[in-house]
């Protein structure tokens, strides 16, 4: 049995757990804890170690999706989780521009850990106060060849599209490597 993994990362409350939950065939093995900090209490719980989802491809192949903890004090987990990943998704909350700088920093950190393909998912695009994805591209200083995908993490089809785009990028990089 071969297992491969992708990592879903991003700032606190970007929607990583929801993203994995939308496509995982098992209940996401979540390591959520009640939030103790008043400043971070925009939701009831947060991921402190990792989220863990699974998609069985066939008898020989399983894809695992790992969600990283978003708060910076748990960033020691990031390197461990990035080991051996196929690629990664950076989730960004489109309604919280104050997190864009951190998202950019997380992106750079993961690229330093492993230079694998990645896509950026502009989550919560269904909200009224969501930033336009092209404005987000400028704010996040993303190159025009980086895929920035509008997304609603609770919508399975949206999540599928993001994962497919990441897989297409991985394929394209393989083709480049061969050329």
């Amino acid at each position: 049995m071969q297992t491969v993994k992708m990592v879903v990362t991003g700032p606190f409350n970007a929607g990583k757990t929801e993203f994995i939950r939308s496509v995982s065939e098992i209940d996401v093995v979540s390591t959520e804890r009640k939030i103790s900090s008043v400043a971070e209490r925009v939701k009831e719980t947060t991921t402190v170690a990792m989220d863990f989802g699974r998609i069985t491809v066939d008898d020989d192949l399983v894809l695992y999706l790992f969600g990283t903890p978003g708060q910076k004090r748990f960033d020691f987990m990031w390197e461990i989780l990035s080991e051996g990943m196929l690629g990664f998704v950076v989730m960004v909350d489109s309604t919280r521009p104050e997190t864009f700088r951190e998202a950019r920093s997380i992106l750079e950190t993961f690229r330093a850990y492993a230079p694998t393909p990645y896509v950026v998912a502009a989550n919560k695009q269904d909200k009224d106060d969501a930033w336009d994805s092209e404005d987000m591209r400028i704010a996040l200083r993303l190159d025009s060849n980086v895929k920035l995908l509008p997304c609603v993490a609770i919508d399975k089809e949206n999540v599928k599209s993001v994962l497919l785009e990441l897989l297409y990028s991985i394929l394209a990089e393989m083709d480049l490597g061969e050329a």
Partner: protein
Amino acid sequence: MALKGNLRDFTVSQLLNLINLAQKTGTLIVDGQNVAIQVAFREGKLAYARVGEEDNSLATILYRAKKLSAAQHKIIRERAGHMSDKELGLLLINANYISQQDILVSLQNHFIAVLNRLFTLVEGLFRFESDLLPPGDKITVRINLENIIIEGTRRMREVEQLQDEIPSLDMALKFTDRPGANLRNLNLSVEEWRVVSYINPKNSMRQIARATKLNDVEIRRIAYSLLQAGLVDIVRPEGVRPVQLPSRQAVQKGTPEEQKSLINRLISRIRSL
């Protein structure tokens, strides 16, 4: 109990606050990654500071503060090199070259600048030697620490922010292909122009810093301002392959065809979800 540890666990502002509140007398010695700094205190007040083996003679400090000309500095070094700082200070005052106030202000600014460099260190072993006082021939000052702590904490925040924005100096900068960006119309400082002249995907920011004699914070500050202006992008230096540990390689088993087949199987499965 010995006051020693690592700045990683006990920050510079916490240390200075402790020295200030406990009104300590002695010398704080910090061994950072690339720099060693010594700062002496008397009853909780800054008295003296020096960086490693850098020239911190009074003549050089006054020259850097533009209180002495290059010619005066050269003559003093040649003819009065054997004099202590205190003797030289008296000589300059008596000869009406400079006032006592000028000397004190120049020294104060120099010592504060050293302390500000200390604030840029996030890691390094430190120890406080209670018995160690500044050399007797050096001129000391008495500066309250409160304002320095406040200013230093501001700088620390800036450093943290810059490190968040530019986590690694091993990356390179390249000019953006954005149409309309014209460097000639920009108002850049001398240091910024020098950095700009080295921008090339082949040069890492660390190399540029070395070539332009900038420290880590200064190169980050300039790179950040150019990034914010949309003039440059951060890229991996050309010719430098990323460090690829075997365990980090996800799809490394099998031939390229097998690897592609694996990805295609994943694509088919996700489409069918």
